[in-house]
């Protein structure tokens, strides 16, 4: 027998990640300058790192409670009030191994076989496979450059999302850098209420908005009861490798997710929980500093694309911009740029429908590298 013949259909049907293929291409090129990275170039704030070290020195290496340390849940509860969110640390918050785990838990908790999961595209690459692994039926909902890649009521209707059971949201968005205001979310919320959908709102980039404050669909009338919000420490606190996120929602939602979590994960990494607690307590200034730096780079990259005559909507969140590929073929452009100028970025088609013809450009890299990369892109475009 060979185990290859016994892979489950759910796993077998999911195609290999397009980003993986591009990673392998980029790995073959020497001295590559990468604008293809989906994580901060900063390290976690030192105060958070020392808290992790201290916890290890004190021998804090056991499991925590399934839902995460009580103190941490309290600090999270306190923190999210700045987004207008109110969740009880007792039974409405669960700490997870990265926001990724939280998203997976929610799929498993809310998706039955054949349930339709509406996923705005282009999208972060994990949602569609996550929905499939849970037995769901992904429904792509395209978003468009002319709408600055915001989700609209018309887009939801056109895609037939009224038949969906679950809607996934991710704003600020990876890969486009799009954000949605309260006004724009109100339309989506109305649609969701009318058609009785569950919303899974991935707000991992909440702290990385450059023109205005974060807006969460969960704070809209009637939405708290039908929404699970995901957030975490990876992006704003530059803690990707510590793997710590959380989910918030009504008690019955968190109970169901905790049921999966307690068997699959037991508890999120203890060391990371100590780091996260300190991050919430004392690292606001470090986050502000990183945000200012990202904002400067964002403007720089947008200005350079504009000067090159490359169309790029003004992305206002996360650390990505999403320009059009000059000749329309994103894969060819990305491969050519990598070969000729040793600059890696990610072709938009990797992120699903509506991504094609665009490029994801991450500015989570130093100004020095960004400047060089933009010079090379310009040389390639003019070459």
């Amino acid at each position, binding site marked *: 027998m060979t185990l290859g013949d016994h892979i489950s259909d759910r796993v077998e049907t999911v195609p290999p990640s397009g*980003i993986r293929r*591009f*990673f392998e291409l980029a790995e073959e090129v020497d001295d590559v300058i990468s604008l293809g*990275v989906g994580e901060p170039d900063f390290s976690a704030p030192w105060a958070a790192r020392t808290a992790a070290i201290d916890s290890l020195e004190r021998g804090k290496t056991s499991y925590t409670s399934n839902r995460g340390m009580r103190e941490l849940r309290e600090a999270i509860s306190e923190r999210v009030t700045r987004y207008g969110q109110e969740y009880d640390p007792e039974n409405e918050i669960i700490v997870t191994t990265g926001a990724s785990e939280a998203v997976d838990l929610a799929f498993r908790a809310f998706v039955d076989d054949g349930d339709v999961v509406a996923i705005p595209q282009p999208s972060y690459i994990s949602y569609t496979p996550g929905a499939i692994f849970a037995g769901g039926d992904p429904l792509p909902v395209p978003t468009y450059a002319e709408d600055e890649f915001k989700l609209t009521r018309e887009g939801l209707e056109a895609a037939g999302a009224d038949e969906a059971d679950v809607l996934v949201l991710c704003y600020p968005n990876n890969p486009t850098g799009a954000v949605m205001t309260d006004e724009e979310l109100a339309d989506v919320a109305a649609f969701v209420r009318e058609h009785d959908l569950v919303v899974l709102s991935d707000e991992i980039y909440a702290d990385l908005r450059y023109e205005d404050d974060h807006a969460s669909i969960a704070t809209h009338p009637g939405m708290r009861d039908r929404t699970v919000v995901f957030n975490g420490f990876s992006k704003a606190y530059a803690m990707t490798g510590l793997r710590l996120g959380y989910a918030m929602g009504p008690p019955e939602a968190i109970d169901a997710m905790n049921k999966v979590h307690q068997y699959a994960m037991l508890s999120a990494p203890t060391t990371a929980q100590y780091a996260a607690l300190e991050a919430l307590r004392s690292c606001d200034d470090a986050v502000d500093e990183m945000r200012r730096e990202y904002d*400067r*780079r964002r*403007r720089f990259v947008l*200005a350079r694309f504009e000067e090159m005559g490359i169309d790029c909507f003004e992305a206002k969140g996360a650390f990505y911009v999403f320009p059009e590929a000059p000749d329309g073929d994103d894969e060819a452009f990305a491969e050519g740029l990598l070969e000729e100028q040793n600059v890696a970025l990610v072709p938009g088609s990797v992120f699903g429908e509506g991504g094609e013809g665009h490029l994801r450009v991450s500015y989570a890299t130093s100004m020095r590298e960004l400047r060089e990369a933009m010079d090379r892109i310009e040389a390639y475009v003019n070459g």
Partner: protein
Amino acid sequence: MDKQSLLDLLRHDARESVDDIARQLGADADAVAAALEELEDDGVVRGYQAVVDWNRVDDEHVRAQVEVDVELDRETGYEQIARRIARFPEVATLRLVSGDYDFFIEVEGDSMHDISNFISERIAPIPEVTKTVTHFVMDSYKEEGIELGDGDDDDRLSVSP
């Protein structure tokens, strides 16, 4: 033109071109040039200097931090004494501080001997100076907010979701 953001950026890297500063602040290059000139004219920005890791320079370069006690009298204040000390080119930094002593001086020279001579012949004899304590810098780990170690390699995956 938001001066605070401009200062923020210059403190981070003062070698950016006016064009690149303009791009990063979403401002007009002319406006940036004008704001820079104003900051300089108003004496807000006093200069632009390299942050040097002297350990990596072959020539000997010695620095010392000197604590200076002074005794004021009716005719002489801190300001007057400070002006007198600041004029010496060997003095890189001069601050009036709270605590156990009055002035903090950073002195630079080519050798320990140079610096010792300077303190004993130029600073100690100033009539108001009652005491000096000289600390030679043995090593430096961080200057102007920049760590002087080997730095960390960017070991992130070159392409990631």
